């Protein structure tokens, strides 16, 4: 549906270099990368605000890199919202309807419908200058969605929102996506990428480093940068279940991991940091509720310590000191126990 082919653009102190990726219709595509990686520039190039030096942008079988911005029908929600301060919320949302030749009443109905979807019906007559960050974000989203964009581009939409607002907006974005809206979402936050994305492209220094499903990118990082950036080796897709009144995250190959969560019967991702995993030779009594025997697959010295890979039915990665390896006499092929607390398991709802 949307295909970016070999886009390059030189700026005085930065360049996009041979950016290529495909976004299928109905996809929730995440551009994941650090600040300054060039993610926003890619969005602005797709929207037409930045003209590439070379490369092509194909949308629904048509090359659009020379099409006027206002004719692309690509919606862009800016990170700083860019809500028009001199117009009311209603006028902001209705702005895109001007060119559609609708009657006053039709416009009013369309605005009300969008406002209801976004939960901002009570704000329609307010001035944007009196709104909070979360409210502005919704107005910006409504203003863009009302034109029924072929692709919705979101630039760090959840940045600078508090946890509750983030959760609400994530839910809203998910429901907009479920309605069939194709979305490209820029973020530096891997949790956001996991929670929302159906596909991810990792961007680094103006280049696409890796693309794929969240599972593929997180479990098989193709480069050290991706591995470091996504940062978590113990990353599993799970289903949440209650067994004997205790919440377990059940991995694909049926390993039950105790977690702290109120959600049940949901699919989710879990993350466990390597430094949160304890290693012993025998089962020991600690406050950790996750205790598994396993076989040591490999021991790899690293900068921050030794990476120990233990197969407990799934491969778990523990980060321990060299002294601990020597003290416990750990060897590849040998056996050990691993322990981690239920509170050390981070859950991200899908």
């Amino acid at each position, binding site marked *: 549906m949307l295909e970016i082919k070999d886009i390059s653009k030189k700026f005085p102190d930065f360049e996009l270099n041979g950016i290529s990726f495909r976004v299928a219709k109905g996809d929730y595509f995440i551009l994941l990368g650090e600040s300054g990686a060039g993610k926003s520039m890619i969005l602005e190039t797709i*929207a037409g*605000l930045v003209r590439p030096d070379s490369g092509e942008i194909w949308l629904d079988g048509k090359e659009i890199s020379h099409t006027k911005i206002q004719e692309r029908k690509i919606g862009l929600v*800016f990170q700083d919202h*860019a809500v*028009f301060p001199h117009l009311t919320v209603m006028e902001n949302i209705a*702005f*895109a309807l001007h*060119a559609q030749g609708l009657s006053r009443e039709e416009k009013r109905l369309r605005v009300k419908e969008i406002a209801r979807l976004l939960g901002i019906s009570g704000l329609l007559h307010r001035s944007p200058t009196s709104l909070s960050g979360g409210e502005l974000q919704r107005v910006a989203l409504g203003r863009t969605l009302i034109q029924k964009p072929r692709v919705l581009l979101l630039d760090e939409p959840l940045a600078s929102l508090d946890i509750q607002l983030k959760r609400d907006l994530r839910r809203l974005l998910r429901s907009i996506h479920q309605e069939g809206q194709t979305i490209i979402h820029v973020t530096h936050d891997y949790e956001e990428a996991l929670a929302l994305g159906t596909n991810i492209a990792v961007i680094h220094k103006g280049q696409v480093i890796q693309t794929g499903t969240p599972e593929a990118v997180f479990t098989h990082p193709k480069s050290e940068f991706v591995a470091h950036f996504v940062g978590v080796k113990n990353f599993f897709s799970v289903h949440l279940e209650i067994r004997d009144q205790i919440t377990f995250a059940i991995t694909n190959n049926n390993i039950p991991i105790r977690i702290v969560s109120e959600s049940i019967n949901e699919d989710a991702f879990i993350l466990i940091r390597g430094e949160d995993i304890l290693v012993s030779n025998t089962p020991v009594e600690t406050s950790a509720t996750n205790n598994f025997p396993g076989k040591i697959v490999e021991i790899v010295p690293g900068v921050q310590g030794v990476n120990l890979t233990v197969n407990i039915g799934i491969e778990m990665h523990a980060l321990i000191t060299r002294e601990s390896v020597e003290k416990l006499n750990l060897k590849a092929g040998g056996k050990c126990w691993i322990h981690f607390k239920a509170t050390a398991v981070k859950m991200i709802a899908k």
Partner: protein
Amino acid sequence: MKRLPTIQLIFILLGGLVLLFIVAPLLGMALKTTPHQIFETAGEEEVRQSIWLTIVTSFSGTVFFSVAAIPLAYLLARKNFPLKKLVSGIIDLPVVIPHSAAGIALLGFVSRDSALGQMGSLVGLNFVGHPAGISIAMAFVSIPYLINAARDGFAGVPERLEKAALTLGASPLRVFFTITLPLAWRNIVSGLIMMFARGMSEFGAVIVVAYHPMITPVLIYERFGAFGLKYARPVSVLFIAISLVLFITLRWLAKEKEEK
């Protein structure tokens, strides 16, 4: 009571002297003029006509030239082009050259044998000694105030808002009229008022282009030359009072509109 630092006291004293320097001559002139003299002057047909002419010529010059000055200010704020600094310098020229010299230059520009003068003659208009010539002279010396204020206003409008409007399907023309212009409006209005005010107070350029019909600054000069200080004072006080009322009202109206 908290004692102010010495440096602050010195600054307040110096600032007070500057204020006194501005207010004292005006106040002195006003105090030396009786209300009776002012009413008597206001009743004179010649005075009333000149004040009206001054307001109308300055206002029409401001409106007419703003049509081209505002787009120029937008270009200066938004676009980079060769010799942009030179263009900015040219815009400030009328402020720095002597206004009588500006009048001489303009006289050559609008006289009958000039291209503009000949074009005027075709429709029976002779700019020299005509309100249209006065408007041109006023606009020449006051247009930098509008262009500079409008340029600052446009520069203050975040480009992201214009870009956002484009992504919402608006044409560049609609973006200019619905986003850029309204957001820069406060500065533009301020520039229009300044241009209008500066135009009304112009003497040097106007007297060269059109001694008659007489605008109020020229009338004041004539009364001073022919009859002395005493006769020039009432019309000066009256003109200043009317100017003040006019500008305070304009600023107040602009503020009201802004708040709505």
